[in-house]
């Protein structure tokens, strides 16, 4: 395959090379035809080659192509001409290839004047413009001083802002005066606009003295603006003023604290830390935000504040220490915890390290869970203390703690979170113990390990609806994360969907199903479109699958399901759903209806009958789930591990059976059952099974000749052919007349024999034993001499396509 591509590539580049060399000898007509045949260019090298030729033949080449443009109408195709013309204009507008720009421009100009259709003319004119110097844009209108002065009195705030800006720009010396008067204005929009314009004009430093001087007497609104301004411009000299405003209360305090955080500096850190845990909750929160982003050392200030005892409420300090991973604070935290400040437990996670594991285990094991104590913060800290250890090491540490703990179950969730195989094993065992069951379940729910999925599904099957609702989303996540085989993942999710569950959970499962890009997942999700509760999730799922899948989906299913999904998505009125509906639009436009197979005129004359023309399986019975019509072919997609046969509706005696087959995977195994009853193994209880087998797969290298493709299985060997590559179609004919059977593959006869002769008349062992010395496979074939029966496809596993199935019924007795 790869070799062929490389050859094609080589061939193309050789011909393109030649063609560039002789461009000047070709007529303009030939150049134009060659260029149009290569439009649109797929890469820049091709583009250069084509456009060099086209430009070399300008202006005539341009005029000729433009003359091909027709007025737009249904069925009119101008696109290649548009590609060529805009391409050549872009090409010569490139400063590195502009040699022929004048000739191209002349061609475009002639084309413009020759063009009568207004739309095409507009297109050509737009191309002309690309080759002309840029027209100067008129300058934006600026306000005159007089206009600006008048506008300063406008009732619209924006007008006054623009007027002030114009006047300040006109005379920057007056900018400070504008600031000074703006500070007195009650219009916040104007105040801030003037502040910002003056800053741009004069630089922040020039404003500082004025703002500091005026600050005490300003209105609260103006004070707020100035505090914000000090922070945004990081005015260090205003630090004292800003710190002084911490206590003013309300929005001003908050603004001052935020501004101080932006200004930074050592004194500021101390002041901010002192606000943490104070009486004013809003100030404390503002200080926390400022300290979290504080660009400087806050470690010393925090530790110092923690070791002091004057702090009313140390919780925010520990929160900050934890956030910044100040492990030095851990001993103080444990000390305060033991003296009854239980709130601190919530902020241990960033403070602890592996050295604290045993201490935390002791604290956890000592808890009484009667509602008075909360285990979660300590368990979080316990987990956090292990975060630098490997999962196996964590398992080792926790299981050792469990072996001696009073309350083993307290540690089960942590055990589960190690995600190790052993943890899942231990928890599954513990689940059997009535007393440990709930905690073991919690642990299993937390285990990030694929083996937990099977355990959870087993639990779900025995649980009530509420429990099922808890389990299934987790189960789906595990399947989603760990199952690499999409067919298996689809099967596992279909099992979950079959359990009783809430609509919300069903929708979650459908969302996960939407990530499995297989035909069967598409059909499964499609089934949930009709239920109002699940329609939207199903619609998004089928959309996602359809856009990703590499598998073929039968056109009529594709269309009906996506049509439905689109109307569901359109109806929600949600913007994202609108996007999805558009995506479906595009997919439906591009989808092709299934091709229909037809008899050749000769077959028609001979009396052949179509058994499958690509549309439906009306003339067939049996496993129609595993054999489905997909885009003109029967797609064999039997479920994982399941098996299934497809039988003709009628029985036949003598016949010519023709079909085409295509392997999509290596090692496909199937077969045609001849004169067989239903529900039996055709190779033994039918007359025979003619093998369909990808015997070229390495795993079949040692096959016997009576097992290869086309062989009458176990009875008559076939000539071993070499199959066409995967994805290509082969033809096959099986002619059965009396005891004679003839198999022709890709036009070559590979079996032509007589079954009675092949077993010397003994289809079963004459002595009644299991070993029959007369057949090549030494087995009994009780059905071998059947006079009539069904024709079937028999096999299992996914990846075979069959199409154009027809039969000539020769009827008759032997």
């Amino acid at each position: 395959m790869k070799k062929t591509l490389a050859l094609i590539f080589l061939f193309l580049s050789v011909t393109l090379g030649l063609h560039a060399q002789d461009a000047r000898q070709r007529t303009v007509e030939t150049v134009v035809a060659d260029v149009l045949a290569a439009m649109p260019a797929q890469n820049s090298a091709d583009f250069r080659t084509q456009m060099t030729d086209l430009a070399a033949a300008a202006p005539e080449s341009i005029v000729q192509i433009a003359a091909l443009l027709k007025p737009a109408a249904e069925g009119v195709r101008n696109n290649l001409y548009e590609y060529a013309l805009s391409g050549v204009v872009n090409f010569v507008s490139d400063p590195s290839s502009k040699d022929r720009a004048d000739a191209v421009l002349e061609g475009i100009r002639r084309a413009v004047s020759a063009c009568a259709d207004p739309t095409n003319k507009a297109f050509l004119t737009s191309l002309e413009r690309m080759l002309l110097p840029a027209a100067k844009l008129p300058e934006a209108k600026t306000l005159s001083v007089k206009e600006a002065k008048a506008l300063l009195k406008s009732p619209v705030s924006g007008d006054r802002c623009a007027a002030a800006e114009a006047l300040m720009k006109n005379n920057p010396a007056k900018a400070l005066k504008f600031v000074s008067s703006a500070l007195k204005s009650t219009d916040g929009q104007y105040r801030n606009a003037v502040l910002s314009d003056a800053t741009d004009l004069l630089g922040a430093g020039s404003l500082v003295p004025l703002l500091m001087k005026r600050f005490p007497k300003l209105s609260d609104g103006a004070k707020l603006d100035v505090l914000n301004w000090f922070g945004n411009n990081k005015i260090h000299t205003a630090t004292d003023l800003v710190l002084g405003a911490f206590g003013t209360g309300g929005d001003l305090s908050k603004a001052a604290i935020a501004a101080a955080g932006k200004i930074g500096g050592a004194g500021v850190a101390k002041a901010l830390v002192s606000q943490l845990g104070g009486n004013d909750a809003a100030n404390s929160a503002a200080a926390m935000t400022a300290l979290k982003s504080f660009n400087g050392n806050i470690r010393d200030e925090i530790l110092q504040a923690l070791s002091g005892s004057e702090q009313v409420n140390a919780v925010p300090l520990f929160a900050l220490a934890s956030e910044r991973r100040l492990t030095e604070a851990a001993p103080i935290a444990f000390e305060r915890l033991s003296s009854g400040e239980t709130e601190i437990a919530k902020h241990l996670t960033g403070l602890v390290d592996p050295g604290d594991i045993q201490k935390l285990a002791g604290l956890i094991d000592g808890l009484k869970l009667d509602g008075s104590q909360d285990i979660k913060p300590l368990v979080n800290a316990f987990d956090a203390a292990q975060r630098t250890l490997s999962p196996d090491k964590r398992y080792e540490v926790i299981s050792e703690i469990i072996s001696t703990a009073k309350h083993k179950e307290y540690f089960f969730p942590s055990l589960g979170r190690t995600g190790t195989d052993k943890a899942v094993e231990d928890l599954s065992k513990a689940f059997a113990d009535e007393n440990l069951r709930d905690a073991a379940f919690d642990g299993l729910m937390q285990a990030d390990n694929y083996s937990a999925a099977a355990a959870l599904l087993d639990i779900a099957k025995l649980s009530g609806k509420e429990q099922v609702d808890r389990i299934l989303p987790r189960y789906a996540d595990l399947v989603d994360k760990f199952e690499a085989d999409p067919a298996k993942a689809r099967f596992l999710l279909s099992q979950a969907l079959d359990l009783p569950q809430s609509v919300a959970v069903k929708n979650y499962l459908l969302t996960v199903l939407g990530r499995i890009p297989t035909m069967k997942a598409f059909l499964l999700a499609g089934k949930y479109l009709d239920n109002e509760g699940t329609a939207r999730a199903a619609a998004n799922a089928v959309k996602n699958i359809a856009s990703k899948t590499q598998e073929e989906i039968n056109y009529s299913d594709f269309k009906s399901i996506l049509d439905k999904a689109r109307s569901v998505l359109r109806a929600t009125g949600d913007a994202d759903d609108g996007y999805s509906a558009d995506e479906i639009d595009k997919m439906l436009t591009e989808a092709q209806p299934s091709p229909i197979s037809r008899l050749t005129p000769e077959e028609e004359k001979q009396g052949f009958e179509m058994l499958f023309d690509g549309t439906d399986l009306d003339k067939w019975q049996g496993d129609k789930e595993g054999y489905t019509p997909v885009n003109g072919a029967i797609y064999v997609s039997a479920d994982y591990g399941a098996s299934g046969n497809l039988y003709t509706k009628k029985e036949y005696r003598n016949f010519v059976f023709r079909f085409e087959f295509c392997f999509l995977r290596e090692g496909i195994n199937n077969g045609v059952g001849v004169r067989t009853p239903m529900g039996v193994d055709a190779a033994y209880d039918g007359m025979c099974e003619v093998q369909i087998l990808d015997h070229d797969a390495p795993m079949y290298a040692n096959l016997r000749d009576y097992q290869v493709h086309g062989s009458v299985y176990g009875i008559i060997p076939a000539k071993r052919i070499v199959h066409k590559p995967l994805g290509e179609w082969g033809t096959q004919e099986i002619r059965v007349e009396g005891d004679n059977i003839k198999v022709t593959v890709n036009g070559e006869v590979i079996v032509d024999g007589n079954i009675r002769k092949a077993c010397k008349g003994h289809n079963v062992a004459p002595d009644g034993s299991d070993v029959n010395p007369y057949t090549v496979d030494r087995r009994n074939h009780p059905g071998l001499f059947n006079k009539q029966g069904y024709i079937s496809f028999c096999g299992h596993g996914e990846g075979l396509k069959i199409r154009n199935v027809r039969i000539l019924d020769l009827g008759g007795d032997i």
Partner: protein
Amino acid sequence: MGESRRSFLKKSAAGIALFTILPRKVFGAMGGDKSRVAPSDQMTRGIIGTGGIGMGRLHFVSDEHCRLVAVCDVDQRHLDQAVAAGKEKFNTNLQSYHDWRDLVADPNVDIVHIATPSHWHGIMAVAAAKAGKDIFCEKPMTRTIGEGQKVVEAVNQYGRIFRLNTWFRFKDTFYGLGTTVEPLKKLVSAGLLGWPLTVRISGATGFAWKFFWTGRENLEPMPIPQELDYDLWLGPAPYKPYNQHRVHQTFRGYWDYESGGLGDMGQHYIDPVQYILGKDDTFPVKIEVDAPQQHPDAVGIWRSITYTYADGCKIILEGEGFESKGKVPYIEGPNGKVYKGFECTIPNVMDVINTLPDPEPRNTDFLECVKTRQKFALEETIAHHSCTIVNLGSCALRLGRTLHFDPATQTFVGDDAANLLINQPMRTPWASMIL
């Protein structure tokens, strides 16, 4: 244009149409309808464009902090739906406008929410700024670099508050990263990955480029639906015969209005990267594209777009179906890599990040910004920078060549044709509105 607007006015109830030009004080003088006078701390908003975005569950809202008072659309059906939804959801009679200039002139509207296709964004934002409105603009900010410059100028000149509506630079899980951008910002700012950095925005790192937003060639002219004022829908864009694929949900596939998946998702994906790399005040200097030749009207697909900054930092976009194979880092520097899901080559990276200060706090509440007149976290200048990255990409795609850009002058270096794409022609009278 004037023709169709007049005929609309004739068709619709004259009373309603007249309403639109009554200034606020007239209502005051008339004494009635107190609900029209907003309390000083309650803001009001009008939406231009009531299609998929404007009617989305995040935007078609009205509450005591900010009341939705007006809607505008050139498609009468969309407009009727919006008015009906306003009745149903908020029990309000929304003022409805056919011509956005009337909504911008409405004294009852404080904030103009621009939710039209992007070829309108620049003109509308400038007009709204001039009318003294604050602006909430959908992505991408503008369709051309020149329009972006004009918006920045106007917003500053008129002292307005502007927000571009994408948000990953300050909140929410950022697609493939699996976290907000904050930890990555801290990691990068502390220099722990080294410098320069390369960011790969690709299906391989968890970002989809939505190639279904491609246009169609050979569009046949179709009759314009009665409810649609196509001329006003086009506005500044070149006149082309109507085809339903040009408008509404599929307009992104045409260069005249946007630039496909790049235009739709570009600013969404790239703005946070600009923040992470600390490039809010500069632009890339080189843009390279690898793509099939682009049609002059219909947006096509591309394989990759590579932006390079003067200091060597790179942003690489990989088209759908052309992603790098194998394990690909989202961001990569000489000292470390971060992959999809924040998998990092630095051991215990979250512990390391936790010891670093948070990024400087920003103003992320737009209504609060409007009240306090502080700049929003994603204000006009920053948004113009990240939108320009998108527009640089579409210029290079359309011309099919490598472009060089000068951040100081915001022009292409030595390429006249590319510079023509910075300010593209507009139909009258729209060009004059943005000057």
